[in-house]
């Protein structure tokens, strides 16, 4: 066996392992430290489980549940928007397909912070959407709640999901659909029996990615949610930067990773159950 592949793969692997493992070890250690006394961000040299107790009390567990549910919501909404859109883009001519994909990805050239700011202005109480609804009656609050947070975070993820799903669909031989139609299948039957089974691997992957990114959501809840809509990521930022409580923030970071892993395990179980 040659050493060459190892030499080629080593730099990147060492970079990733170093920059993930080093911080991970520090996070675990800091999460076991006592809260800062006076100055500093934590009390070095102390060992305590206090931070884990704090973040798993009733409020803490509710935050975990909300974060998990938020991730599932983001995944569901992302697929509900991205899949029809991907089918539409797939049905276009090659030129139209490239143009449409380019337009879908265009917002990704702008800063996420500002995109969500634009979305906040559009959805906000004085924005055009609320104003339009107001001509008919009292408009519902579209921001500063979970709904706004969900829309915001989904907005950031949809372009990637569309890209992934179009990529998956374009690997399907379009002649199969034509053949099915020629053999007498209705449009719905052709979709249900050919396009849909071919899409499911892409849908699973896009759904899982959206769920993980949704569970780690920060910008959506932060900019379009209210103070009460704090996911784990939002709260850990608050703990670290507004209150200077690094140990608690570190413990929450570890809890967040655990929640994301839980989502992956649930997804793997669902996949196996669907396949059986």
């Amino acid at each position, binding site marked *: 066996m040659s050493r060459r592949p190892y030499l080629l*793969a080593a730099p990147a692997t060492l970079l990733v*392992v170093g920059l993930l493992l080093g911080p991970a070890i520090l996070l675990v250690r800091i999460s076991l430290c006592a809260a800062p006394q006076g100055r500093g961000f934590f009390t070095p040299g102390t060992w305590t489980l206090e931070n884990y107790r704090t973040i798993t009390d009733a409020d803490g567990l509710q935050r975990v549940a909300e974060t998990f549910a938020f991730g599932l919501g983001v995944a569901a909404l992302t697929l509900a928007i991205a899949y029809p859109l991907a089918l539409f883009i797939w049905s276009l001519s090659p030129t139209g397909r490239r143009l449409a994909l380019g*337009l879908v990805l265009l917002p990704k050239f702008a800063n996420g912070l500002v995109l969500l700011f634009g979305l906040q202005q559009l959805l906000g109480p004085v924005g055009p959407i609320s104003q339009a609804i107001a001509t008919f009656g009292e408009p519902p609050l579209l921001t500063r709640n979970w709904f706004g947070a969900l829309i915001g975070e989904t907005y950031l993820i949809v372009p990637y999901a569309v890209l992934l799903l179009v990529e998956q669909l374009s690997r399907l031989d379009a002649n199969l659909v034509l053949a099915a139609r020629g053999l007498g299948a209705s449009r719905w039957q052709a979709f249900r029996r050919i396009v849909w089974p071919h899409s499911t691997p892409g849908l699973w992957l896009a759904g899982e990615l959206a769920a993980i990114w949704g569970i780690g959501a920060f910008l959506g809840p932060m900019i379009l949610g209210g103070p009460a809509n704090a996911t784990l990521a939002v709260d850990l930022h608050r703990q670290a930067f507004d209150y200077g409580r690094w140990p608690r923030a570190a413990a929450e970071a570890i809890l967040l*990773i655990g929640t994301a892993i839980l989502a992956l395990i649930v997804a793997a179980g669902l996949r196996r159950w669907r396949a059986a």
Partner: protein
Amino acid sequence: MKILGWLAIALLLAPFGYAVWISFSPDTFLTPPTGSWSLRWYVEFGENRRWSAALVRSLTTALGASLVAVSFGTPLAYAVARHRFRGRRIVASIAIAPALVPPAVLGMGLLPFLFVVDLWGSPIGLILAHGLLGLPVVLLIVRSSLDGQSPDIELAARGLGASPWQVARRVTLPLIRPAILAGALAAFVGSLNEGLVSLFLATPSTETLPAVVWPQLRHAASPLVAVASTISAFAAALACWGVAAFGHAARKPGPKHRGEGN
């Protein structure tokens, strides 16, 4: 159906368009310019040292991150695509991990880590962090390009007496250059617009655009925020155009290659 599809795409573009529109506002508030348009906030952006310094830092960080991602990611992609070795799948999954770790966790972990390794307050910390985030993208793009090309061409070159280094430089790299450029571009744009790890790692001497935009969004937002986004989106588009033009120029046979056949 067709109209509905294009309408959905237009809706997805609306927040972006709105932000660009606001940037031309003559007012102090974040309202779209209804009557007259103004470049007032662009002038302000250029004159304000904090904002323009942050823009320059964002651009250099993005450049550094894209170099890191490409120089580490390309050899890895080659190893994974062309060699069968023990640990190949593990190595490939490890390199995807940065895309799956929630950025808030990455930021929270890198914060004390950079303290410990004494990179706190140095631009290298953020460059490495963003390079890490760009690595999975480079791996995916370059690997799929390599998968799409027959390894026989490389074998033929070897058979004709080229050294492994010559094969890499004269055969493989020219073939995958478009993919490498695309990966570099994706890493560049991703870093330019990354707003969360940057937020955790910002110090007054190393703050990039998101770190300056952030307190503005939370407290008193001025159209400078929209200007910042428009300019960085423009820089991203410019980078795309540059890569496309460069790729196009590279495809034409230059005078150097023409005589080499004989």
